[in-house]
Each structure stands twice: as C-alpha cells, then as structure tokens.
C-alpha cells in the first residue's frame, strides 16, 4: 500500500465524522479545544484524586507531605479499616444506606403508581389531581411550618422524618408521567381487551417498557436521600442517629469531633480516642460519601438526557 506516502504530511487526516463542507479547524481550534477539555476534566477530577490518594496514605506519608498527598506512596487501607470497624462512621454509613434504600424504594413505588394513575387520558378527576401536583412547583411551605408539622406529628428524631416529608418529588413524577404517556395506547388497550386490570397493565406492559426512566428517577431519589443533609439537620437532634452527611460536616467542614454522649459511640475505637481524626481518616470519610454515587452512576448516565429533556419540556 502506497497511500501512506501519497498523503500530504503537513495536514492531519481529515476526521471521518467531519462533514464534507466544513472547513478544517484552525491551529487555535485544533490546540485550544483539547486544552480546554483537559482543563475541565482536571478541575473536576483532581480534587477527587487528591482526596482518594490521601485517604489511602499512611499517617507518615501524610505528615511528610504536610497535609494532602499528591504523589502516592506507602498506600494502605488502614483508614478504611479503622472507619469500618465500628464507631460513628460505620453507624452513619449503615443509617444512610438504610434510609437511601428504604426511601428510594418507597418514593419510586408511589411515584410509579401515581405517574401511571395520572397518565391515562380521560380518567376520572385526573386533571384536578394533576393540578394538585403541579401547584407544588409554585411555592414551598417554608421551613418553620414544615418543622412544626413534623414535630407535631412526633417525627422529630425518627428516621421517618428523613423520608416522608421529601418522599415525593413533583419533578420526578412529571418526568415519569410524560414517559408513560409516550407509550403507544394500542399496547395498553390490547392488554385491556385481554382482560388486564390497571395494575396488571402497569406491571406487565408499562414498567417493562420504562426501565430507563425508572432507573433515572430512581437515581435521582437515591442521590437525594444519600445526600440529604438539611432534613437531618432540622429533624434529628440525637446525634447518634446522624446520617453520613452530618458526620461529614462535623468532621470535615467544621473540623470538630462529635459531641460525646452520642449513645455509647465515644467508646468505639474508630474516632473516640483521638482529639481530631487524622487527615487520612477524614479523607476516607469523604471517599465513603462519594463511592455509592460513583458505583451507580455509570449504569444510569446514558439515560440522563432523555429523562431531563422530558422534564424540561413537560414541567
């Protein structure tokens, strides 16, 4: 093959995806774009990298670096072993995990049901009910009345206070409803002719066709519960019930140790003994807060655009 020699050496090969009519990029365009993209990538990835490396470093390595570690050396899992062997962080992790799991399952269930219930055109009262949902976009009840309600329901210091008040997101509901309405009516009608009731139609026809939107909405809910900080701050006075985000704030943002008397937690080896946790341990807490998001994220990321666009158009 001699095509190699024929090609002009001064110009790079034309990109196969570039339309034939489009001019070749200028030198600035050819160099600037990768530089900017690399910069964007670094700005997001570098802090995460430093945090992970520091969390994996030994105490000596952290001391030698004078703080955060950039060049990894002497990697060890000691910080994680210490954190996960009982104590405040282990407990907070369990609490956050349970709340996220239960909350997401509950939210997803009622959202799917309501989204389907509101998606059948011409059904009884669906307009006023939809209006009740949409109206919540326009105003929030306010912090104080919400707090008073939760408190008068006796939910202060209960895990239910982290789930029930934020269990339903009107945005997610509308996204899902819009998706359901896009399913061809013929499919649903034919199932009805075969004698399927509404619940059967939802379970056998609609849900199998809607895995993408259910996954995205599920992720939105799960991330919401996992990250829930403010509801916990408002409704949980008992710091032995704190989820991970509150622990994160106390240790990292405020650089404090949890107040003692947190239900026997201080006796634990992980964080009770030191006046302030070491930097490696602190960074390990940060990593533990990110990991679940990173784990689910790749599987659902590809569906984002669809979900968000539906929401933007219909919301």
């Amino acid at each position, binding site marked *: 093959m001699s095509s190699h020699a024929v090609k002009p050496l001064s110009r790079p090969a034309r990109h196969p995806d570039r339309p034939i009519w489009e001019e070749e990029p200028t030198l600035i365009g050819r160099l600037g774009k990768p530089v900017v993209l690399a910069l964007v990538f670094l700005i997001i990835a570098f802090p995460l990298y430093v945090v992970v490396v520091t969390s994996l470093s030994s105490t000596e390595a952290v001391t030698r670096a004078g703080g955060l570690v950039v060049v990894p050396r002497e990697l060890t899992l000691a910080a994680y072993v210490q954190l996960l062997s009982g104590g405040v962080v282990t407990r907070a992790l369990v609490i956050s995990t349970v709340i996220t799991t239960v909350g997401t399952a509950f939210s997803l269930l009622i959202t799917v049901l309501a989204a389907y219930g*509101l998606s059948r055109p011409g059904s009884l009262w669906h307009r006023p009910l939809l209006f*009740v949902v949409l109206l919540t976009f326009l105003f929030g009840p306010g912090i104080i009345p919400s707090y008073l309600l939760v408190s008068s329901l006796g939910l202060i210091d209960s895990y239910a206070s982290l789930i029930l*008040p934020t269990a339903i997101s009107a945005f997610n509901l509308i996204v899902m409803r819009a998706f359901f309405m896009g399913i061809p009516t013929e499919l649903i009608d034919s199932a009805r002719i075969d004698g399927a009731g509404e619940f059967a139609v939802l379970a056998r026809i609609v849900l199998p066709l809607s895995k993408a939107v259910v996954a995205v909405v599920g992720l939105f809910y799960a991330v919401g519960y996992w990250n829930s900080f403010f509801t916990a701050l408002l409704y949980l006075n008992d710091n032995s019930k704190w989820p991970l985000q509150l622990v994160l704030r106390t240790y990292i943002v405020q650089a404090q140790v949890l107040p003692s008397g947190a239900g026997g937690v201080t006796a634990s080896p992980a964080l009770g003994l030191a006046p302030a946790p070491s930097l490696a341990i602190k960074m390990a807490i940060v990593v533990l807060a990110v990991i679940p998001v990173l784990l689910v994220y790749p599987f659902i990321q590809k569906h984002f655009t669809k979900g968000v666009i539906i929401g933007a158009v219909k919301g």
Partner: protein
Amino acid sequence: MTTVDEVRTPTAPHQTPAPVPRRSRPHWRLRLRRDWPLLLMVAPVIVLLLLFHYLPTLGNVIAFQDYSPYVGIRDSEFTGLANFSRMFGDGAFWSALANTLTITAFQLVFFFPIPILLALLLNSVLSVRVRTFIQGVVYLPHFFSWVLVVSLFQQMIGGAGLLAQSLRANGFQAVDLMTNPDSFILLVTVQAVWKDAGWGMIVFLAALSTINPALYEAAAADGANRWRRLWHITLPGLRPVIVLLLILRLGDALTVGFEQFILQRQAVGAGAAEVLDTYVYFEGLLVGDFGYGAAAGLFKGLVGLVLVLAANKFAHLVGEQGVYSRS
C-alpha cells in the same frame, strides 16, 4: 391537549364515536367504577402532598401570630402584621435580602453563560467517545452533596488545604479563601459552577442536537464561515432554551441554595453569607421565634411566587412557550 374523553370500556372496543363527543362523557359514577384503580394509585402521593406540602403551607398563619409551641396554632394570639413590621425594621433582614439578590445577580452574569459555552464546545467535538467521556465527568459533581462539595473546596483552597500547603512549602504567605467574607460571593459562584455547570449543559446539548444539520450545510454553501453559522444558526436554535432558563432563574431570584450557605455561614460570618433561607433558619428555628421566622419565610415564598408567575407571564409575552404552559 385533548379534551375529548376516550371511553375505555374493554367490552365495547368498536363503539362508533358519538356525534357530540363532549356529551358522551359517562356519568361520574360510571367512571369511578371504571377508574377506581387509577385513583387508588394516585392516592398515596396526594395524601403525602396534602400532609407535607399543603398542610404546612396553611401553617404559615403563625406568621400573623405571637406563636407559642406550648399553646398551639389554635390558641396563639393573633398579632396582625407585627412580625412583618418588626422584620422590615430589622437591618439583618435587609442585609440578608441584599445578599440574596446580589448573589443571584452575580450568578446570572458569571454562572449562566458557562453551561452554554460548555455545550457549544462539547458539541463541536467530533469524537463520540471523547464527548461521552467528558459529559460523564462534568455531570458527576451534580450528584455530590453540598457537604461534599464544600469539603472538597476546603481541602483544596482552605486554610489547611492543598493551595495553602504548597504556598507555605514554597515560602509564600498561605491564604485561606474559605473564610474571607470579601471574596465569598466569588467562592460560592465558583462552587456552584463546579457542581452544576456540567449538569446545566444537558438542556443546551439537547437543544443543539435538534438543530437541523442541513441548515449548516446550506449556510456553508452560501459562504457563511463558522462564526457566521454560529451566530445565525446555532444561537437562534438555542434561543428558546436560553430565554426559558433565564426566566426560570429570575423567578427563583430569592432562592440561592440553602445548604451551601448554611454550611459556610460560620466560617465567613453572617455579614456575607446570610441569605433569606439561612435568616429564616437562624432567626426562626434556632432562636425559637417561630412566628417571626414564618413571617420571613412567607415573605420569601410570596415574593418568589410573584416572581415565578411574572417571569412566566413575561415568557408568554415574548412568544416563548414558558415554564408552565397553558395546556
């Protein structure tokens, strides 16, 4: 939206359409017998919304009371607008309001264009693999909690962070950008950009993908260079989305994000970091002055409502679809 009711009786799939569809709507009892499973499905959500959204909204009456939790809403004394007049006489309230509006304005100028620019840049990347990879990376911080974002910033540019650390190692004076009230507005904007600019890009990317490529080709054939094509095809294509989001942001002017400020208020002081939401939290909840806090919250809610409705009205006026379409 159709107003014609579709009669979904499975036993009569081939009914001839009635001459006047409007009158063919069956009696509501008949429809109830048909649709009760649907209503049952919607019920939990409606109950939750009534309980945790509408009921507390009514609870805002305590803004007009000298509310005491021991007496309850029913028996607390009504004081009319006393809470409000006290609020309007409070310098800290005006300072919080001013902070909120300044931050909104600042973010409008410095945050808003970034997702658009990012989308334009990414859209021009030809390699699909590079594009999906970068998208995946820039969406990611949106899913981090504010606690995490603030933590990361603290570790990077805080007093004991990486920046201070390397400055010190090289013999410079260490800086702490996390506790400086003067640069706080810049800090929160940078944090917001870091967290959400990538996510904000999603809508613009979608809008870009709907622009017909034939337009570009035709323009190129007519001799328009890349900048002309950007100006005459791409930007007009983005216009509806830009207007919509701009209006949405204006309607949300009093909401600048709660957790971000409550987390950092301590470090930089209330002078710079107090916004309306944190004002409500501290003055109302932490002090225990519920009626007063509710008044401040109600003020924020009502002004916010007016802003949203006005913004939407404005959207209709300029011929865009608006946020809450009049279906």
